[in-house]
């Protein structure tokens, strides 16, 4: 692994590293990764240098402190559910970009950000949609959602269905605030806003992991949310 011959005399005895190289390599001596000639040369220097030996002690203590537990990770399950929803959404959007409000093809890599940006654009375009009279009817959004979820793209059949919710925000709520609310609750806009200002939003998590009632309760606790209702009858609380 290491350059075993470097720094050794023809007789095979190691050459002292000196302060600077010792200082550069001390962290890897402490973490046990130095081997071969590097390790020997560093040890040779330590054997004759009080200052570096003293540094070694401080380094060992620092290494132990850095390596100690720092933060208790939460349960991975909620994050895993969000990942599944994201994968399902990414798989669904690509073959079936039927949602005519989207301004163009969405990159799988940037799906979430693209979704937020699209939401902002859709808001900006709302007057245009209304004038032209082809704004989507939120009442049929549930059917569209089921179409997305039942797409036959790879991975879909195995991914759990997520919650579909009809969401109406307070009048005049900033697009960034809407984005923040959606991010906070793990929502992705599937459709909207329609003529009534309603969005169809896809929320992470299956009914088994998080009941629809909990999703709705969370949304209804947001001051900016005027209406949150389930779109799939069987999931209504």
């Amino acid at each position, binding site marked *: *692994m290491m350059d075993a011959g470097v720094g050794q005399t023809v007789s095979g005895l190691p050459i002292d590293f*000196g*302060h*600077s*190289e010792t*200082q*550069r*390599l001390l*962290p*890897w001596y*402490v*973490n*046990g*990764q130095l081997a071969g000639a590097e390790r020997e040369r560093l040890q040779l220097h330590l054997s004759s*240098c009080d*200052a*570096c030996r*003293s*540094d070694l*002690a*401080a*380094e060992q*203590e*620092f*290494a*132990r*402190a*850095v*390596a*100690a*537990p*720092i*933060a*208790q*990770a*939460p*349960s*991975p399950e*909620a*994050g*895993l559910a*969000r*990942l*599944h929803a*994201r*994968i399902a959404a*990414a798989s669904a959007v690509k073959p079936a970009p039927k949602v005519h409000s989207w301004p163009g093809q969405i990159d*799988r*890599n940037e799906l979430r950000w693209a979704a937020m940006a699209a939401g902002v654009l859709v808001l900006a375009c709302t007057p245009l949609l209304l004038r032209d009279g082809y704004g989507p009817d939120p009442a049929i959004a549930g059917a569209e959602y089921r179409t997305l979820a039942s797409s036959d793209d*790879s*991975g879909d059949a*195995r*991914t759990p269905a997520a919650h579909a919710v009809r969401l109406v925000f307070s009048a005049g709520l900033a697009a960034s605030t809407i984005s923040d609310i959606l991010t906070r609750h793990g929502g992705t806009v599937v459709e909207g806003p329609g003529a009534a200002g309603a969005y169809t939003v896809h929320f992470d998590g299956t009914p088994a992991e998080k009941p629809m009632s909990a999703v709705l309760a969370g949304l209804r606790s947001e001051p900016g949310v005027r209406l949150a209702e389930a779109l799939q009858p069987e999931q209504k609380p």
Partner: protein
Amino acid sequence: VISKESAGSSAHGDRPGGARGAAEDAADWELIRLVGTGDTAALDQLYRSCHGFLYRFVYRVTRRPECCEEVINDVMFTVWQKAASTVPGARASTWILGIAHNMALKAVGRMGRSARLELALAELDEGFTPDIIHAVSTASLADKALAALSPEQRAVMELVYHHGLHYQEIAVLLECPESTVKTRVFHARRHLRALWPGLVGDGVVAKDSEAQEIESTGSGT
């Protein structure tokens, strides 16, 4: 440690490196291969196995607990996307940490200058002073001391001291020369000298003219 929360045969806890052997690494790569075929059960197992060490790593770099889950989501989504086209090279955990490193730094970048300043000020307000060293938990002191570093430096310190990686492995993970890794760690330790006495001792650096050379070599800090 967090390992108790992990599930699956290849659970990593919060540290995937260390004494893990080739068999465990092969099992991890097999999981990644299955993820590449669209196997969501394999994805679940990999996610649960990596969540602990990813959470810790992302927290260490960003220092924002509220960012961690979002970054982990980005990391594992990337793993899902790249699994089919990735050829096993380094350790599987090192590959995933490399993705996490990029995503965590992007998250810091997204915070914006004002949020980063706010974070720095909040840490100053916590009243860190070197003379209270040893008075409270050295782990929390180390955590506070690391706050004085850049996110890039915190990442590399975590990779050395917590994950126990060789500088060659870190160079692969960061896609940079080995000398950059050594120099970045050296600069970080020098920066921490005031907060953690004895790291890169003053006497040693002052009396050794070679030290000046160290400052000017290597491309990264």
